[in-house]
């Protein structure tokens, strides 16, 4: 299930993300549904209060390749998918700011919801990305980790 180059927009970037730009980009005339997921820096994790920022690290080339695998798998499962955009920030991201955005379009909403949720689940499981939690006066790698897997196993 290959995808035309213009149908996907994948990026690993140090720049601020724009959920709105991605949501608008995925709109197509035959699509009645756009679902957008935005992952946001929150003030706590399962092991820590008072988080003020996260810092993400990856190998961008490998991460982009794995993101493409995620999108290919989503297209195999939901052939009605139209456009898919996934952007992930690296570097430091402040509280309440987006770290990752997934936007997808489809003619009907069921496929759009299912594919968007699959993309973020598969991203978290299969894309090499590590986050450090920052608080006043310290930082540590996140404890919320999983062994790296494959998109198709999600």
């Amino acid at each position, binding site marked *: 299930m290959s995808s035309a180059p213009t149908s996907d927009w994948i990026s690993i970037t140090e720049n601020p993300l724009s959920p709105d730009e991605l949501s608008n980009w995925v709109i197509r005339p035959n699509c009645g549904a756009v679902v957008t997921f935005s*992952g946001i820096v929150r003030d706590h994790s399962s092991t820590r209060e008072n988080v003020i920022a996260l810092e*993400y*690290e*990856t*190998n961008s080339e*490998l991460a982009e*390749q794995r993101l493409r695998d995620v999108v290919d798998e989503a297209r195999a499962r939901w052939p009605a998918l139209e456009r898919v955009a996934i952007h*992930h920030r690296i570097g430091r991201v402040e509280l309440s700011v987006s*770290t*990752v955005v997934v936007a997808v379009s489809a003619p009907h909403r069921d496929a759009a919801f299912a594919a968007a949720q699959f993309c*973020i689940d598969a*991203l*978290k*499981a*299969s*894309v*090499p*990305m*590590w*986050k450090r939690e920052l608080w006043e006066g310290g930082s540590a*790698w*996140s404890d*919320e*980790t*999983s*062994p*790296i897997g494959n998109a198709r196993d999600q």
Partner: protein
Amino acid sequence: MAKLILLGPAHDAAGRREDHFDGVTLDDVLKEAVIRYGADFGTLLEVSQVWLNGEPAAPATRLESHDEIMVLPPVSGG
């Protein structure tokens, strides 16, 4: 010489982001790396995946020059 790339927590545990090793197999390099970096790195390696040139590879895989080995600790994206 194979290049070892140390990502996320692995670069902290090793004290560097990349390194170079001689070794006949992937396993040789990883054993040598644990000696070079110490026990904390060894502990992290046990829960990490090791990929050769962007793909999972068996420990017995024989290395060629310019091979790129990546140590991938458990991930936490998104």
